């Protein structure tokens, strides 16, 4: 008789349930229907993704400086390379590129400092980012003081212009939106009706119309001596438009805060601004993060609408480059590049908002 006093080692699970095979069996081929669907999808991927990869990478041309370098039949990234500086800096004078570079680096450092948890004095840094940085950015970009050459706004373009439009829109529309949202819920009839009318008016008009009004109609009514900068007009239009949307997002958040919170704050004898600033808004803003970031992302993409008023944002400058007789016909490469850049920025914002949501989640409601 054999007595085994040692525990036998566990047998490995059947090969058909672990590893790649197991995963595929449970997820892709668990029933005849799924098997058929999997095969169809795999076929569709095969006929779309493979040629796309071949076009974008395998058969692509990367090096060179004219269209003669594009001979292999795939994507001609040479076009992007040859125009890369223009896509980033627009018509900014080449000797002054460093000014935009400095701003890019500053912005990257500030954002990194704000995102990283351990940075000391984050409050001061965020105040610096929101108040001092835009002023520095303006003086660096526009010049005219500290011995810097003036670079007029019609020379701004490309990704740097897109970022200027988006950042100004984002930074300015949030506070205006908060004020408008509070105003719309105010008990003072004048404030309330002003805010309501403002929001409904700006929200009821397409952004394109606003940009058109700003660029086509305003100059006709303004006296001839006043040369209202086109970029400034567009910025004001975008900011006011987005703050109306922002106001409604924030109002949604304010309404989601239980009445008890307002009453508790009142019972403590807090003034209106303290009640809002210390009790209501911190809770409301937290639950509104997805909505706010959604609006920011929409704003970021909406900035490309300025191309219809002749401002060269990233999309418009790629289109202009496509009209160079030397580079006619590379529109797919151009648009792919633009889409990729926009995606990187928007996806970044989206991931950061998810991170914030997780971090600020303190257990209200179901998740």
């Amino acid at each position: 008789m054999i007595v085994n006093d040692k525990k036998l080692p566990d047998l490995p699970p059947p090969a058909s349930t672990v590893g790649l095979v197991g995963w595929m069996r449970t997820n892709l081929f668990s029933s005849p229907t799924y098997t058929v669907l999997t095969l169809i999808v795999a076929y569709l991927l095969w006929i779309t993704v493979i040629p796309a990869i071949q076009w974008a990478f395998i058969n692509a041309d990367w090096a060179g400086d004219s269209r003669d370098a594009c001979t292999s039949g795939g994507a001609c990234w040479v076009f992007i390379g040859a125009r890369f500086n223009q896509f980033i800096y627009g018509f900014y004078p080449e000797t002054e590129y460093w000014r935009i570079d400095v701003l890019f680096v500053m912005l990257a450092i500030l954002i990194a400092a704000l995102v990283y948890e351990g940075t000391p004095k984050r409050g001061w840094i965020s105040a610096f980012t929101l108040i001092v940085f835009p002023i520095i950015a303006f003086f660096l970009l526009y010049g005219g003081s500290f011995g810097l050459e003036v670079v007029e706004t019609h020379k701004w373009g490309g990704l740097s212009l897109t970022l200027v439009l988006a950042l100004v829109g984002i930074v300015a529309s949030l506070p205006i939106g908060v004020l408008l949202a509070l105003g719309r819920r105010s008990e003072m009839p004048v404030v309330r009706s002003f805010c309501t009318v403002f929001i409904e008016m700006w929200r009821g008009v397409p952004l394109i119309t606003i940009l058109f009004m700003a660029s086509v109609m305003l100059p006709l009514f303004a006296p001839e001596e006043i040369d209202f900068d086109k970029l400034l007009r567009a910025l004001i239009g975008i900011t006011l438009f987005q703050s109306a949307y922002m106001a409604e997002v924030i109002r949604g958040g304010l309404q989601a805060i239980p009445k008890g919170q307002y009453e508790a704050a009142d019972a403590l004898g807090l003034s209106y601004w303290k009640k809002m600033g210390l009790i209501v808004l911190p809770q409301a803003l937290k639950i509104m993060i997805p909505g706010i970031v959604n609006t920011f992302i929409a704003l970021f993409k909406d900035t490309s609408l300025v191309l219809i008023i002749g401002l060269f944002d990233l999309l418009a400058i790629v289109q202009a480059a496509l009209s160079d007789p030397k580079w006619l016909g590379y529109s797919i490469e151009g648009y792919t590049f633009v889409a990729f850049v926009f995606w990187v920025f928007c996806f970044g914002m989206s991931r950061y908002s998810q991170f914030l949501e997780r971090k600020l989640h303190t257990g209200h409601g179901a998740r």
Partner: protein
Amino acid sequence: MKKITSLAAVSAIAMGMASGAQAASATLDAVKEKGFVQCGVSTGLPGFSNPDEKGNWQGMDVDVCRAVAAATLGDASKVKYIPLTAKERFTALQSGEIDVLSRNTTWTQTRDTTLGLNFAGVNYYDGQGFMISKNLGVKSALELDGAAVCIQSGTTTELNLSDYFREHKMSFSPVVFDTSDQTVKGFEAGRCDVLTSDQSQLYALRIKLANPDSAMVLPEVISKEPLGPVVRQGDDLWFNIVKWSLNAMINAEELGLTSANIDKMKESSNPGVRRFVGMEGPKGSGMELSDDWAYQIVKQVGSYGEAFERNVGSGSPLQIDRGVNALWSKGGFLYAPPMR
């Protein structure tokens, strides 16, 4: 349509107010004071106005701006280019945002008479044409009965097309696209037999084909699209300057002057050349310009022929034929009044 009319009315009223306040040569004074010419160009039209790799604007329309700057300021590079969309262009001119509009703008009666604007000449005679695939074997637009035609929506192209086909008792089926890229792709994919657009653009569209040699442009031109620079009404001196800057480029070609040979030709005894470079004759006095204004244009920008070949002709990928844009003496339409 009504909206457009009322917009034009508003523009005209605003224009009336603006021009009433102007002195005779306000634009020239302002240009001299600022030190640059503000020139409205397109946001990118191959061969007419488009930015190159370095961000410098180039093209037929851009060369008109440069010629004006060379004549008024003696330096063709002193131009501030304002890219404008089709809808903004007239307002920008009316409101004084630009001094001259050089943006492939067709000279029509409505534009010339109701918008408070003046067309200072024609720098390119364009017209709507057809591009077909060579293996279709068609040699003339009159053989296109029943054809499927690719058109870009929202342009007058469609109207011209149906006029032409109705006039010749032919039928066609339109295939409408939004952008020129889509139109080309549609043509390439065989959605239509023939693609129609302004001839200058057909050549640009042809380059976008995978195999440009497979397509050809038919000789028929079914509409008149004279393109030229535009200025505000009410400043005749400035109007003359723009008009004669263009005329000087055309006359230079007629006299055989180019940017390369003008310094040598300056010494010639040809009275036409001597008047051109400002050694004798009217010089620049009537326009408050320096005596060598025309010399500066040719030296820095070149003659019309040079500009044509450089931007859209043999020196450019577009390879557009001179066609009707040749000098009158060579079978084209270009005819500038003499400079004397």
